């Protein structure tokens, strides 16, 4: 049963990491437009803001 001394902290740390990731996602507004983000992955356009300088800008459309 000594294994519990490792397993329980590990499970708590893993869960805690998940919780921290959730907090991070929430604070960085990732739940503001879930539908849009899901659709944007299908676009060919640049989706990085700010966009790169106009000279280098890729213009797929």
């Amino acid at each position, binding site marked *: 049963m000594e294994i519990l001394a490792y397993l329980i902290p590990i499970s708590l740390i893993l869960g805690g990491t998940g919780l921290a990731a959730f907090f991070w996602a929430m604070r960085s507004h990732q739940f503001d*437009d879930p*539908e849009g983000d899901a659709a944007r992955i*299908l676009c060919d356009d640049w989706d*990085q803001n*700010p966009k790169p*300088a106009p000279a280098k800008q890729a213009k797929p459309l």
Partner: protein
Amino acid sequence: MTIAAAVAWQDVERASPGACPACAVASSANALAEMAGRADVGVMLSLPSAHCAACISTVEHTLMAVPGISSARVNLTLKRVSVSAAPDVAPAQMIAALTAAGYEAHELDRGILSTTNMDQQGRELLMRLGVAFFSMMNIMLLSVAVWSGAEGATRDLFHWISALIAIPTVIFAGQPFFRSAWASLRVWRLGMDVPISLALILASSISLFETIQGGHQAYFDAAVMLCFFLLLGRYLDHRTRALARSAAEELAALEVPRATVLVDGCDVVRPIAEVRVGDHVRVRPGGRMPVDGIVTHGTSELDRSLLTGESLPVFAGPGMAVSAGEVNLTGPLTLRVTAAGKDSSLHRMADLVAVAESAKTRYTTLAERAASWYSPLVHLLSFSAFGFWMWKTGGDLRFAINVSAAVLIITCPCALGLAVPAVVTSASGRLFRKGLLIKNGTALERLAEVDTVVLDKTGTLTMGSPEPVDFAVHPAWVAEIAAGLAGASSHPLASALAKKAADVGICAARIEDVQEVPGYGVKGRYQGAEVRLGRADWCGGAPLDVTATYLRSGNQTHAFAFEDNLRPGAEAAIAAFKAMGKDIRLISGDVEGAVGALAARLGIDDWTANALPAQKVALVAGLTQSGRKVLMIGDGLNDTAALAAAHVSISPATALDAARVASDIVLLGSSIAPVADALRISGQTRRRIIENFLISGGYNVIAVPLALVGMATPLAAALAMSLSSITVSLNALRLK
């Protein structure tokens, strides 16, 4: 908005030209230098028809192509686009660009849209939900070990670790329940949150006591699970309400009010709030009166259809009083302001509506009705179990408290808390995708009870855009002259006539000296003789009882009759209402001829023309008194009071502010067909809510007797709770 977008937004607001490359593309170096001194402004547009990835890129590219716009970002969830542009780019330009690309757009007021407070609450709930989920999962792992037979020191260790996770979680995540329970206890009422808080506190403390005593059973998992499921319901409920609230604000913001004020002979555009009584305001042809006033200069015709339902424009000249909301058609007008903003007739109407609105909030929802008998029952059961076991066991306090805690945990309205929010969230999401905004939380339930549909004509069943009907009966030369004159005017009847002529292949006759006489019509010379196209009295004709324009040539007068374009989906919607067995009535302020023709075309038997606003209210009130549940669909100021008086009301997005404020549901797209879907979905919603109550009640019927006789284990509590919550959520998702 992602982080990147948020960063970009800030960048843009700082307006450093280097940071927004699109500005650099759009403007010459000259313009850039000029722009460096001024900050870009943010504009928010509502985009009801955006729905896919292609829409995002089309909209963003269309907007970026407009000179002066530095960034555009679509939020598909909220169906909005936030644009930042140089201050001289008018929102009207963006809307025009989007309309050309095939997207309907409305401007929103960013100031009103700041929903920071609501966002904060939502985020807080989401945070508590995350914490509760984390704890629930970890405690569940430990509990599974205990349920499968962990003994002695191991069990105690697991209980202690569970306690260490659960107690802080319950204290943190349970706060919304504790706060609202305290608030309702202070006014001597038993809300839904009292049994919840009691269950949370009792379950945690009895489990802690058992853990200290080295007992067999601890309810930490149940306490945390209860927290999680109830918070989930609370969060869904909050989100629906936040959406409804932002929808209401969005609508209040739809028509961003500005007026062109004459200051020392110059035109200055000002927000409506800064216009004072006595100011002179200029209204261009095609513009809407921003204020109440008296015409001082100019003659024109006014479209009053939104206010009165008349589809025939009326003459306006100096000395005439005009009201906010009327549309100026042909000539520029200058008004002396008699009332602006809060005092204008539009706003006074809105105040009347607010009074009618408060009556609506008295509607008791299914959830409230369920809570009102459920909550006392739970307490009664729990306390009688406690009393019975105290007597039966001869004062075994520990056992009695254990039983009453188990009863509270099992009866706790876990599924009940989810039953309504899950269904309403799912239904309003579905309606939102069809282009319907639910402004009021109880609107769906009220919509389900509707048995009579009352419709307005102008602007609701019709688009308010006229179409000539008897064009073909006129001799070719008459049509040619009419087309020639009509081409010179931007009056809606004239443009419709010119368009029709072009469609049927009639060449416009060449008319000389064409001149628009604002308020009357167009005149010119054809083969040396004067010809006129315009109002009946000006052209010397007898007015028809339908919308018409008249052509005077020589000493003959020819009348061109018009009919309003049907709103897309109107026929389908009426057919669907009929199929559902609803009673349909048409009531309009327009003349008999126009209303009768439309009623015949749509197959509506019961229609009323020339109705004053008070008659509309009387009709709705009369129906309501005879026990009918009325759905009112209308868009004009003359419908506003009727909209507020009806059991539930719908208005199109093109309606006046006051009408939209008064209605519970707003139709964003131009088709009226989704209203029939809304009726169907609301019926389903109501059924699902009742089913959900039955399901969660069913679990209680099985589990409560077990708890009462003291046989409920933590495992049984956990099973009953999670199974009922999951069934209820799945049932909500079945909405089609």
